[in-house]
């Protein structure tokens, strides 16, 4: 049975070691925070919150405290605040151990496309994705393995406009966990329960290597 969105996030969370500073994108990536338990991980948000805690309890929201997805958040003990320039200095200077993003496509050379679906998009909106792609120490993608209409999202070359070049190190999908290796391309780490390598390969647009 393929992973649910929550299971994908949980699977990814098991690979995050204690002490990392992690930036989570909008969507499935945000779910990762719920699954990092029993270890201290510092969640950073582009809008200058360094050390977010869990979602606020009802009635205890602070309207001045949101994350980059505009959701109300709380502070962990040890949290601090910076302005946008300092927050992105942290991101662009290589101080984020891990960034987790969603994607439209990931290519076997590690290219990421996750911000625009065509070159003539009506209002292209990039946000902080290119900064994170270029700046984070490592970038992991979590996404459905295929589009809603069944087209593969793991591809030989991205067709959509790029967010960053050769930046994705690992991909977590509903079907598998896959490393993106320099020179080599996609390398299977784990299959979701009940998924076969043949099925995975059939649903991928590029070669999936396996040991």
């Amino acid at each position, binding site marked *: 049975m393929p992973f649910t969105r929550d299971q994908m996030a949980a699977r990814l969370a098991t690979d995050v070691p204690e002490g990392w500073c992690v930036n989570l994108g909008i969507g499935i990536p945000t779910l990762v925070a719920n699954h990092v338990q029993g270890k201290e991980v510092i969640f950073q*948000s*582009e*809008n*200058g*919150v360094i050390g977010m805690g869990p979602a606020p309890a009802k009635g205890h929201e*602070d*309207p*001045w*405290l*949101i*994350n*980059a997805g*505009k959701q109300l958040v709380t502070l962990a003990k040890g949290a601090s*605040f*910076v*302005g*946008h*320039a300092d*927050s*992105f*200095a942290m*991101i*662009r200077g290589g101080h984020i151990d891990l960034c987790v993003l969603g994607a439209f496509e990931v290519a076997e050379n590690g290219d990421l496309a996750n911000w*625009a679906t065509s*070159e003539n998009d*009506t*209002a*292209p*909106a*990039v*946000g*902080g*994705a*290119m*900064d994170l*792609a*270029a*700046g984070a120490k490592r970038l992991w993608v979590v996404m459905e393995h295929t589009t809603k209409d069944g087209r593969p999202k793991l591809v030989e070359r991205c067709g959509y*406009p*790029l*967010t*960053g*070049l050769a930046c994705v190190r690992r991909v977590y999908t509903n079907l598998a966990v896959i490393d993106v290796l320099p020179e080599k391309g996609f390398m299977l780490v784990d299959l979701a329960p009940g998924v076969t390598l043949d099925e995975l390969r059939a649903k991928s647009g590029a070669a999936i290597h396996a040991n």
Partner: protein
Amino acid sequence: MINKIVQSVAEALAGVKDGSTVLIGGFGSVGQPDVLIEGLIEQGAKDLVAVLNNAGVGRIGVARLMELGRVRKIICSFPRSSDPVVFETLYREGRIELEITPQGTLAERIRAAGAGIPAFYTATAAGTLLERGKEVREFDGKRYVMERALPGDVALIEAWEADRWGNLVYRGSGANFNPVMAMAATLTVAQVQHIRELGALHPHMIMTPGVYVNRVVQVDRGGDWVTPEQA
């Protein structure tokens, strides 16, 4: 006596000229100078270049300013929102220019303007569509894009507390673009919740020194966060 506190929003925005580049602070609804934006709508300046993270939500604030045809161009990282109807209509009809800039590049370009740096290099956007029209250069074998400083004629910002020198303390995630925008404009106007006595703000809590601020107007929107006073 230095006193940057003005008594009305109209006074705070006096002299903003047609054709101005206006830096507008805030991220989401936090740290957004909403009353100053309303004031700018009243004030009447047109042919504006608006620099901010989003392109407005619904039909209020910046979206309203755009709907009134007062914004010639918007420089932002994320023109989409929960309700982007005004921007998207204008954009589709070719009635507004859009310069899309990665969020970190936007913040750094504004800081550069405030810090006397006319241009810098960044790996962000290298090899992507947003590199187009920009100089590209390799340093130590890696590709970088040259980005130019982005100064404003006016900055509209928001803070939690101010004193008469214009020193500002932000609350929670309310700093965001406000501190760099305060540095980068000829005229910086701050909307604040609370005015404190000079000396009451802790010297280590002040994120924007008053040197960067020209006018402060108090707009109390509620909220009960108390900052520690100077020891």
